[in-house]
């Protein structure tokens, strides 16, 4: 009897540990959200989105320049990294044999694990050192190094899900291999690929470390790729560690904006695929009903 009670006690404690662990995981997430809503939501105003920063000491001003800067650099970085990542992913999944494929796979593995601050150094050494100035281009390059391995990896994984015999069926229609890959394999996986791309971009949009000493940051709106450029995360960082109340408030508003963008993209990407299938299913059902009536 005693043994059984002991076993039951152990079981009970085990359940307790499971539940409390889950609470421990959820708690910080909720706390972060609550504080962001409280502090960030309260500091948010239309001015924040429409104005560039005012000189030190004056209150007011916003982060328009940083939000636009983030879009600019993430856009520029994706412009290079998304197509390149797709091509590399296609190469790995459709041809992935031989020396070049193996070294590419190794490269991608390696890049996936590189700390983002080291990515910043990479870009610094390539761009800032040669151009002798911080620049938006260097920032975009750093972000593209963040995006590239994620997209290559997900593309490879996704395309590998298409069975071999489907590809053969494409070949059997008398299509050259590249058309089979592009119009059947890639096109057939487009929604999963989009999910991967958006997830990678949302990841890059939240990165601070690679931008610190590449794009550096700025208090002015700029569209020049060869000049320093502000970004939302770096601006939040600079304001957060500043001694001014107004700036700290803006840091919260910025963080609130950033998380809306990043989590918004993230959730959109996650549910885009399923939502679309559900939508299609509903449409079909409605369509069928009409048919029955006529």
């Amino acid at each position, binding site marked *: 009897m005693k043994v059984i009670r002991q076993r039951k006690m152990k079981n009970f404690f085990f359940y307790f540990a499971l539940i409390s662990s889950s609470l421990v995981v959820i708690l910080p*997430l909720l706390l972060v959200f609550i504080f962001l809503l409280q502090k960030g939501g309260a500091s948010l105003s239309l001015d924040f989105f429409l104005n560039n920063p005012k000189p030190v000491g004056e209150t007011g001003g916003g982060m328009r320049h940083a939000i636009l800067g983030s879009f600019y650099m993430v856009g520029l970085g994706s412009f290079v990294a998304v197509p390149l990542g797709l091509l590399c992913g296609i190469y790995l999944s459709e041809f992935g044999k031989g020396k070049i494929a193996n070294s590419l796979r190794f490269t991608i593995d390696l890049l996936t*694990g590189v*700390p983002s601050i080291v990515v910043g150094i990479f870009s610094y050494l390539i761009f800032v050192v040669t151009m002798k100035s911080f620049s938006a281009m260097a920032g975009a390059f750093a972000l593209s190094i963040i995006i590239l391995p994620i997209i290559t990896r997900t593309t490879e994984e996704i395309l590998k899900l298409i069975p071999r015999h489907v590809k053969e069926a494409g070949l059997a229609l008398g299509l050259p291999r590249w058309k089979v890959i592009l119009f059947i394999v890639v096109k057939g996986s487009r929604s999963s690929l989009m999910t991967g791309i958006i997830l990678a971009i*949302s990841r890059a949009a939240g990165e601070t470390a690679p931008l610190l000493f590449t794009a550096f940051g700025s208090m002015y709106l700029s569209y020049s790729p060869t000049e320093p450029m502000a970004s939302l995360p770096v601006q939040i960082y600079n304001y*957060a560690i500043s001694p001014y109340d107004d700036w700290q408030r803006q840091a919260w508003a910025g963080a609130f904006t*950033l998380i809306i963008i990043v989590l918004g993209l993230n959730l959109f990407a996650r549910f885009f695929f399923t939502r679309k299938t559900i939508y299609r299913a509903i449409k079909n059902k409605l369509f069928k009903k009409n048919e029955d009536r006529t």
Partner: protein
Amino acid sequence: MKISYSKQDRYVYTGLRFFSLVVVCLLIAIIFQLFKASKLAFDEFGLSFVLSDFWNPVEDEFGALAFIYGTVITSLLSLLLAGPVSIFVAIFINEFLPKKLASILGVFVELIAAIPSIVFGLWGLYYLAPFVKNYISPFLKKYLGFIPLFQGTSFGIGILTASLILAIMIIPTITSVCREVFRSIPNLRKEAALGLGATKYEMVKLAIINPSFSGIMGALVLGLGRALGETMAVAMVIGNNPVISTSLFSSGATMASVMANEYAEADSELHLSALCYIGLLLFVVTFIVNLFARTIVWNNSRKSRS
């Protein structure tokens, strides 16, 4: 003129190879640059760089030991905190929760991974740090104060706070790898254990934890890799003070945080080079750790499949 199909295919193949080669060469060039940039500091200090804890940009004297210490202690502490929690959560999601709740909790955990580290840093600086200062540290001091780790005054900012933030940030990594590992265990074994009259706890221990020990280790090491390189959140809450102190309440600095703090402002060649040297060390260490972790996880999944 029409290009024959086999030629078209060959061109596409060559094109793909070319782009792949570009990526590979880019990485090689970058690593080469990193070595080149660290050379100055390497020539000056050699390997004693990692053995000296004296870091003084004003006098151009650099040693990385304090940063290495900070990185190691925060990473290990966060692993200690996050490890058990992540394993429990993975088990809870995979084996206990009904499907709907499981996917909700799963998404929650993955959302943690999606939160930018700057946001965690901001939250840590303004909320977690005061909380640590006012509640956690006094509590630890009261009950565990006889251990040197919990002595000294806490200003909120320091190694303990950084480790707590890191722990939160690496939970999703460990959890998702653990879930992957647990999923590879055939249902048959779990049912066999339950069929023998085991309690759920015993079933989990016998059929899940024990056989996937190496997989769990791999997940932990991957989490460690993530913790080693985490920058912004740590830089904002650790105090950036290159000292080695036995107390967890003390401020400190990590390899990543010193780069974030000093790189843009470094004006002497040697200072920049020393930072690159630290970057190189961090790069090599995370690479080895990740490689190690992947090998473990890979071996584990291959074993359970056969």
